[in-house]
């Protein structure tokens, strides 16, 4: 039982990280109808910027995180303004490929600047743990949970009550009607990309915390967040959270039990488990737990 609870706890923390990344996907998908593959690049950039501000420039950790979020948001808004805006009216396929191209560029620039060596992010949690009734709670996991909870709460409050948040929801429902109400779709797109960039930076921090955990592979987490997004529903922010946590727990339980219970599935099966879940979801409930079913109209 302790093992189970331990796995669920770690899985929830893992899933909170996925949720942060998936939230970035969903925000951009709702606004522009496009899956942004460059999200992984933003995650990577955010983590390394934090490292740079903190370790290289010697700023306090939380100041570094804040600056990285600001920079991430700026990069997101810039990408939208300089590149994506030119693609309005182009087929979706072209826009997706464009974001894949961007991912390639960011993924190469980051190691060119900071190298391939595993680095210490300089986070205050390190390898510290707290024991509660046999459960070993690592501070890094606790911090991931707390950060994710704070960011997600802030996002949902903004999304529900701020003028911009309402404008974003209106644009997602019907762009033309939103324009007729005087909402600037252009600004909605820019803000969506900025939010995605900023959230990605925090996701990067949670992924790269711990001992020598900052490496160019950190961006890969975005690829594992795809199943979370599909599970929750492509266009549902709460879905991103639920999907992320479910996928995280599933992955961790698989890592804990599969080697004993189903060894024939091979080593490291837990790393592909999210995709297996994704395929099953697509067969049973294609639009996810909370997604809007697509209606075909002429």
């Amino acid at each position, binding site marked *: 039982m302790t093992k189970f609870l331990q796995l669920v706890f770690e899985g929830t923390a893992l899933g909170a990280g996925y949720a942060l990344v998936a939230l970035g996907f969903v925000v951009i998908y709702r606004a522009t109808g496009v899956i942004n593959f460059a999200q992984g690049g933003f995650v990577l950039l955010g983590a390394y910027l934090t490292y740079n501000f903190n370790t290289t420039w010697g700023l306090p950790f939380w100041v570094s995180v804040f600056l990285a979020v600001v920079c991430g948001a700026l990069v997101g808004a810039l990408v939208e303004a300089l590149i994506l805006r030119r693609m309005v009216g182009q087929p979706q396929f072209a826009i997706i490929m464009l974001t894949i191209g961007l991912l*390639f560029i960011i993924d190469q620039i980051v190691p060119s600047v900071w190298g391939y060596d595993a680095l210490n992010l300089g986070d205050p949690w390190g390898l510290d743990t707290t024991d509660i009734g046999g459960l070993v709670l690592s501070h890094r996991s606790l911090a991931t949970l707390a950060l994710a909870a704070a960011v997600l709460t802030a996002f949902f409050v903004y999304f529900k009550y701020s003028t911009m948040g309402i404008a974003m929801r209106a644009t997602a429902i019907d762009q033309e009607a939103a324009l007729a109400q005087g909402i600037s779709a252009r600004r909605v797109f820019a803000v969506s990309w900025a939010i995605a960039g900023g959230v990605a930076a925090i996701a990067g921090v949670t992924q790269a915390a711990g001992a020598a955990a900052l490496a160019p592979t950190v961006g890969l987490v975005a690829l594992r967040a795809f199943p979370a997004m599909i599970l929750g529903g492509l266009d549902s922010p709460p879905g991103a959270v639920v999907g992320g946590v479910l996928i995280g727990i599933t992955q961790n339980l698989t890592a804990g039990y599969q080697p004993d219970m189903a060894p024939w599935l091979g080593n490291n099966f837990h790393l592909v488990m999210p995709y297996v879940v*994704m395929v099953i979801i697509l067969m049973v409930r*294609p639009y996810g737990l909370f997604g809007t079913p697509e209606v075909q109209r002429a």
Partner: protein
Amino acid sequence: MRATGAAPDLHTDYAAALRLVPNSWVRTGAGLAALAWLAGPLILSDFWVVVLGYAGVAAVGALGLNLLTGYTGQVSLGHAFFLGIGAYVAAQFGGAWDLPLFIWLPACAVVGAAVGAVVGPFALRLRGQYLVVVTLGLVFVGEHIFREWGSVTGGGAGTAVRPQLDLGPVDFGGMSLFGTRFSRQEMLFWLIWGVVGIGVVAAKNLVRTRPGRALQAVRDRDLAAEVIGISLFRYKVGAFAISSAYAAVAGGLYGALQTFVSPTEWSLLLSIQYVAMIIIGGLGTIFGPVLGAVVLTAIPRLLDEISRGRDLPLVSDDAGGPGGIITISNLKQAIFGALIVGFLLFEPRGLAAVWLRFKAYLKTWPFSY
């Protein structure tokens, strides 16, 4: 009716417009291409024979992806998985079981198409961007299978691919012709580009006939296509299977050329490179993917060649030596990304469009605008 010099390419009936060889220009072009194919290993340096060998392999794969993406409008990132299947079929059928070339190479296509037809219905159930995500998952699950199925794939360490290369009296593994010794690479150049030729004609023929026009109808407006009686399911899955068959053949040839493959090669990166080829070459053309494959295969190897023993400004060697802001291997990948972004922004129809514009210019000369 024969087109005259004054008004080339003007057709008076549909049959003429759909002909595989519409005019003497195409015939001449095909003849020149065949000559270049025969002369290739005789006149090219070893470096270019190898580069063009790999480019030909990529061209076969890109032709297949283009049938799916360029003609049917379904974006797939799963191409690497099918390339991997082809390579392991070549290793197993042609290598371990020692079957001849005329069996294992078609077997690549058959196995590729079969797996494509099994996976396709799941992947194509949803429209649009879901396919991208599902095929992305396919690549990761595939990598896992390739790593764990050790008896065929050699596990994480990889496996040798040494299939039979005899075809009648011709040994593509290297032989003497008219007193000249041709190496394995040179013989494989002929084999690979021969397959490219077959692939080009088959693709061209497919897209001009009824199934091909159905695919394009699905791409242009799936709902309209369904209304006029095209079974979306059948044609989407069909296109996926054919594209997978092309990919598997390319994978088999790749294995034969490289003689060794390991599971890490069949990654998302490879899939994206193929997508880059068809974007840069030109979506929805037959000529484009071949061109894109050659360009994208040549660029990294040329960069290696240029940077060898020479200092490029701002570029350092892979050891991360001083004086550079980006290493060669990073630069190679970044160029892929930059080319994708650049072409999508400034020439979305790819290199093929440049050629088509040039052709239109010549055709209307001296009244070009």
